[in-house]
């Protein structure tokens, strides 16, 4: 047990060295995740409105080489946790059993990619525009990347659109997959730092 506590303490010390934007003055990652950051979004489907939250709560290490940020997300349906990591060009999501998928990436307008989720859904993502200016309650963000996404083997309108601010985070998304003719629109309203 003592050895386990020692390991835990060592891990915490190492994490404290490796995390946070202050430790990386020139963090070049596409999305510079850091433990303790929370992003709150206002969501509205035209009838109801509510808040959703994303928090980088910790880190997940998959042997033998990969480290992901543990990102908790609350939605109307409950909570879920994703494991994400970012390079300067790509954000990867851990998909289980040693596999990962490309969640977001940089590229020219028109860049398209696909991946299959663990439940069999085939997700197609496309960069439809660059240098977008997006205004949300939290502020105005220039230079955003706009993605158009859909499930290619699901029924109904599965499209959703995301706006990512490189060097920061997703600032807005618009979702038709949640049902109805009116999309659910999520806009960033606040950010909490550790």
């Amino acid at each position, binding site marked *: 047990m003592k*050895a386990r506590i020692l390991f835990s303490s060592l891990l*915490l010390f190492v*994490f404290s060295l490796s995390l946070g934007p202050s430790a990386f003055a020139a963090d070049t990652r596409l999305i510079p995740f850091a433990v303790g950051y929370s992003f709150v979004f206002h969501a509205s489907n035209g009838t109801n409105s509510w808040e959703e939250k994303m928090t980088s709560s910790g880190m997940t*290490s998959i042997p033998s080489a990969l*480290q992901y940020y543990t990102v908790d997300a609350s939605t109307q349906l409950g909570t879920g946790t994703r494991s994400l990591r970012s390079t300067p060009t790509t954000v990867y999501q851990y998909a289980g059993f040693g596999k990962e998928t490309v969640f977001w990436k940089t590229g020219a307008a028109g860049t398209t990619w696909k991946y299959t989720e*663990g*439940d069999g859904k085939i997700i197609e993502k496309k960069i439809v525009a660059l240098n977008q200016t997006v205004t949300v309650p939290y502020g105005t963000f220039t230079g955003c990347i706009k993605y158009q996404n859909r499930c290619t083997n699901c029924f109904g309108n599965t499209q959703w659109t995301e706006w990512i601010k490189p060097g920061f985070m997703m600032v807005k998304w618009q979702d038709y997959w949640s049902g109805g003719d009116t999309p659910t629109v999520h806009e960033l309203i606040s950010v909490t730092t550790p």
Partner: protein
Amino acid sequence: MKARMLALSVLLAVFSLTGSSFAADTRFIPITIGQTFEFAVSDNNPSTPDWTENIAVSGLAQIPPSLLYYTLDQKGQGESRLIGIRSTAADVRQYDGFGKEYIIWKKAAVGTVWSYIENSGQKIQRKIEAIENVTVPAGTFTNCLKIHNKCANCSGVTDWYEWVKPGFMMVKWVDYWADNAPVTHRLKSWTAPAAP
């Protein structure tokens, strides 16, 4: 970047020690990175072929300030998810997000009851109903805890039963809160992590 590489190196060193270095692991469920569990699954629909569900202990999640959860990759028929769990000598806890956890299994006497509310709002009630021997394709496991679970604030039948072998893992579960219920999972095989 150097700090990140240092962190990674230390983590890998820790991973290589975890499990095999703890000869007297007293945890209720001593899961270790590299373990895999394969379950044979059948439901109540005769036209549905049986299928396989896999669980792999793939990594370790650290939630500040001090909690470490094993990452379990779970894949069955049409669904896939990641679960974070940790075990003490007395219980097993599952990470629910936003720093919250709940107790899924307890090493306690028959009749012990506990409940919790998930972040989703569902109130889950659990009860240790019996100590039983369980035979599954992987073998016979003695003195398993039979745990009866249900959602107290959900509609319909929400019961499910789990049989947990202390010092090993869950070896069987029967789910009535599912399509074509009951859906029965029986441990078929497992693998230990490779020696360091």
